[in-house]
């Protein structure tokens, strides 16, 4: 008897939790497909009486949504590939190779975890303007290569795997690069996946630096575009934004990562746990 009660309680609580978390997201979706007169009302109607895609048409016509989306996807992908190459090599050297200054160097790298990026943005901005590279993809991609978390995760991973395979390959006469490429990297798939997901997510979501360094629509990323042109605040200033369009923009930007997440959720959750605990 008590078993059934607790089982019922479990389902009730689960439904409440799921509903509370989902409600804002579903309301965004619902608002984005309603005509404006159904939006400005205190009557809650989750399913619109009249469906419309006018808000989506309007934002795609009025704003370079596709260009922003492409910019975000392209820079996040390029930055992720860059980080995978740099961090797997550096993490491997820190974990498996002996060289002068290794300990000190690693401490210096790690110490940068505590330095907020707000200290680095002014010099970084000046560096990129001197190079004539502000408002380019380079400015969005290159600084991600200096990330610390990825190196740290790769090092921790390489410390945790046994070295016999590499040893065997070396005895067979393979060079250090060959061992790394054909023995070590295939073993490191879980760590590489975690680093890839974390890097992609943080670059895709990154706002402070792209806000500072982008000016034109051909480079501007989706979070910056949304914040500057499609937020209700921006709309108030411009005096023309409709709530429907604002929500359509939000759906447009939220949908791709949600779909990817639902498909790859196992890797996401594993990757995140790895940063926290195993790291």
């Amino acid at each position: 008897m008590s078993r059934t009660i607790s089982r019922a309680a479990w389902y009730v609580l689960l439904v409440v939790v799921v509903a509370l978390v989902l409600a804002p997201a579903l309301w965004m979706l619902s608002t984005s497909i309603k005509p404006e007169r159904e939006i400005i009302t205190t009557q809650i109607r989750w399913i619109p009486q009249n469906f419309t895609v006018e808000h989506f048409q309007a934002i795609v016509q009025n704003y370079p949504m596709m260009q922003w989306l492409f910019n975000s996807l392209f820079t996040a992908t390029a930055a992720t590939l860059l980080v995978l190459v740099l961090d797997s090599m550096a993490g491997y050297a820190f974990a498996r190779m002996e060289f002068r200054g290794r300990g000190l160097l690693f401490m210096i790298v790690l110490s940068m975890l505590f330095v907020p990026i707000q200290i680095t943005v002014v010099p970084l901005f000046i560096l990129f303007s001197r190079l004539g590279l502000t408002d380019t993809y380079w400015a969005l991609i290159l600084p991600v290569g200096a990330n610390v978390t990825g190196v740290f995760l790769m090092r921790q991973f390489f410390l945790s795997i046994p070295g016999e395979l590499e040893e065997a390959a070396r005895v067979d006469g393979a060079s250090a690069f060959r061992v790394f490429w054909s023995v070590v990297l295939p073993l490191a798939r879980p760590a590489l996946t975690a680093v890839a997901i974390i890097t992609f997510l943080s670059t895709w979501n990154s706002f402070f630096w792209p806000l500072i360094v982008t000016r034109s629509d051909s480079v501007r990323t989706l979070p910056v575009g949304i914040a500057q042109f499609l937020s209700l605040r921006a709309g108030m200033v411009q005096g023309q934004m409709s709530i429907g369009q604002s929500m359509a923009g939000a759906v447009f930007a939220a949908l791709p990562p949600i779909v990817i997440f639902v498909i790859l959720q196992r890797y996401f959750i594993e990757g995140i746990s790895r940063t926290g605990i195993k790291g």
Partner: protein
Amino acid sequence: MRILPRTAESGSYAALAGLAPKRRPSLTPYYFILPYLVFFVLFRLGPSLAGLGIAFTNWQAVGTPRFVGFANFEAMARDPRLGDAFQNTVFFALLTVPTLIVLSLALALFLNQPRRGRAVGRVVVFMPYVIMSTVVGVLWTWILDKDFGLLNVYLNFFGIANVPWLVSESTAMYGIILTTVWWTVGYNMVLFLAGLQDIPHELYEAARIDGARAWGVFRFVTLPLLAPTTFLVLMLTIINSFQVFDQVYVMTSGGPGTATLTLVQYIYTTSFQFQKFGYGSAVALILFGILVIVAFFQIRGYRRGLKGVE
């Protein structure tokens, strides 16, 4: 949890494999590490040190920067907007951090039970975190709308009159906090879930055989063994809270008045709207100081917490 680097035990192996011969130092390790180091020095270490230097100048984008000693820091003491930003940031952290920790731990414990539907629960609770912060800001601006927002309409239902949320100085910060909790609670829950999985099952069984009830198990098994995870989550949430920016920029831009002006929002406007690079960097240095102090206490507390367990 291993935040501090573990001394590498791979030395003997590396020597065996010939990667680091004792007699003639090999260059191979440097080939592996150099590409990363170039990026690290150019885009992280160098700019950090330069930022440190700029904080002691009066640089304003045009004109030559001049070294001004501690003048920027003296000016800060007389800057009422900075005082507001500091207070607001601390207030935000004081409310957000405990809320996030309690809520994400509760959700982790709830969704750690071996019952049907927990996987769906986990995915749904984590989902907001994959949405961009600015999109979350846009979405919650509408949810928190004074007249037509979803939240107020439901609150009316329970007899609560319209809360002005983002348009009133006294409630705006609560709106930002609510948004932040919704966005990040799932991320912290996943960290707690991973910590829970690391607790050996036998310990629960032993406690139960000793006659412990659910609360006793939680108090004397789960909570102490979860301490390293809790410290990690505490540290991450504090660090992130002191750097809150995206939501604020999108939802209120620091307003109304200075009600939601945070340290990073202030650094942004000072450096990049008023082009006061020197002063902005000095404020960033204060933020760095706060984070260092937090890290110091965290590491001390973490050590003490571990001793308590053993």
